[in-house]
């Protein structure tokens, strides 16, 4: 039996991701914080349906880049476009505060390492998910309730605890609430900032499992920032390696990990092994 000749297998063999028009395109992003140059002319491209991994040491600028993708911060120079209907050629950094907030609420989901950043700890878990929908203008209680339940279910959160406050939940559960909140509006882009750092290994595996399943089922485009090569290796299709605010190497995940070209990447891969 020749697997290669089957169309599905062919589809998988070709770099299907790169044939599509990119969903996200950032060009020449630079940012200074005082004397520190956090980003120096970074270019990033993310294709629809792929998982893009960003690795690098602390202070390499990976989180800064992710915050810019979430429009929480603006660079000193550079352009950022998302291929959303009606906004194809717009530099998102030029949007007003209000437009930015609405765009983020509707089209971008984010999961932070620290759940306190992403969740309202004093409100119920289902309420946290519902808030997203409320900002987007949903005003029917029944629809809010059912959509919140749906999103929590999709992130494999136990539904009997959906009205518990996140502060009463375990770390893994909190990350699931964050995830549910992020995917509630079916975002075009899901940003994950060290989503499993700080969880113990078995919980980490479960959360990653959920992420993989979501990615498979919904084809959500994800950008995953982590310093953990293992996480990136299991999740990412493509990898960007950052150091001192620059991208030192990028390419398909297998390629980069098996045949690292840049000395820093080599060091990183060896350190892991």
């Amino acid at each position, binding site marked *: 039996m020749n697997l290669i000749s089957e169309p599905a297998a062919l589809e998988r063999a070709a770099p299907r991701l790169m044939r599509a028009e990119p969903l996200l395109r950032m060009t020449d992003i630079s940012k200074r914080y005082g004397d520190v140059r956090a980003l120096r002319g970074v270019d990033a491209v993310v294709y629809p349906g792929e998982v893009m991994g960003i690795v690098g040491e602390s202070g390499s600028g990976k989180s800064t880049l992710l915050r810019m993708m979430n429009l929480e911060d603006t660079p000193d120079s550079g352009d950022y476009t998302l291929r959303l209907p009606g906004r194809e050629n717009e530099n998102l950094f030029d949007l007003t505060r209000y437009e930015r907030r609405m765009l983020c609420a509707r089209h971008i989901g984010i999961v932070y390492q620290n759940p306190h950043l992403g969740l309202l700890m004093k409100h119920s878990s289902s309420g946290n998910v519902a808030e*997203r929908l409320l900002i987007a203008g949903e005003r029917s209680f*029944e629809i809010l309730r059912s959509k919140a339940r749906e999103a929590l279910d999709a992130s494999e959160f136990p539904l009997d605890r959906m009205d518990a406050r996140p502060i009463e939940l375990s770390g893994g559960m909190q990350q699931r609430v964050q995830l549910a909140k992020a995917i509630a509006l079916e975002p075009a882009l899901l940003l994950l900032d060290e989503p499993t750092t700080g969880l113990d290994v078995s919980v980490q595996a479960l959360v990653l499992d959920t992420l993989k399943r979501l990615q498979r089922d919904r084809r959500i485009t994800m950008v995953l920032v982590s310093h953990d090569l293992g996480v990136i290796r299991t999740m990412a299709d493509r990898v960007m390696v950052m150091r001192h605010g620059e991208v030192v190497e990028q390419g398909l995940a297998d390629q980069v990990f098996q045949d690292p070209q840049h000395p820093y990447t080599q060091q990183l891969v060896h350190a892991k092994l």
Partner: protein
Amino acid sequence: MSLATLTKDWAATSYGFLDASAKRELRRKMLKAIAVPGCQMPYASREVPMARGWGTGGLQVTLTLVNPNSVVKVIDQGADDGVNAASIRRFISRVSGASETWDTLEATIVQSRHRVPEEIMRENQVLVLQVPNPEPLRGVEPNISIARQMHADADYGKLWLTLYEQIVRKGRIMQGAAYPSMVNGRHVMTPSPIPRWDVPKLNMSKHLTILSAGREKRLYAVPPYTRVEPLVFSDRPYLVEDHAALTCRRSGVSGFFMNELPQDGGGSVFEVSDSNLGIKAIDCADGAPDAIGDTWYRNGEFSA
């Protein structure tokens, strides 16, 4: 030339108690507040001979608006004869020469705590509400700077969220007084601690409403014919207090907001909260013609 020739003659107080610059500032802030309905305007709350928190905000607005031809009515929880209401009313008339009244229809300025009168107010009347806490977002965002940004962004998700959670936990919206309301489709305000019963009266009303918080130093306004919409879910209708079927023990009127008076036996009796309406109803029963004006609620249903 001595300094004395340049200054005005000494007088005990200026007209309407507040000095001219205080009144000028309040007028400017009121105009701003009217220009941006529901938006809170900060002002320098002056000292008045009353403790902060007892209606100083409303009093300053009234003292600024008042003139010798004004007719002032002051109500406290619906009653004209409370100690606080009577003292404020007497003070205003003493420093301004304005006349006092208990009758909503006669008044040109109605200063009120906790209630909007039951009789419909007209274009040439001003309702001044005393507000303890002008910030609808305080419960969800204690930081005032951030709350102001949220107002600027029209970011009211967290307010909706508290209503959502009340339904989740209790099965209905528990917010009793100070029900957050969207003014002119833009700013959410807290309509002072008036009951849910009174909020619809502010919607598209003929009169100007000014809400002022003396302790918190902010005022905001609902201009005439402006939309005031309580925040409600599309499938959970806005409910006012369940007073439509209650009858006042003393005046016999029914279908208005009532005060509940608990009795020894565990039961309770009710008296109409708008005391002047009760008095008029009693006068009517005694043969006085046409005493009660049109009311917002008829037979317990909002109809204006």
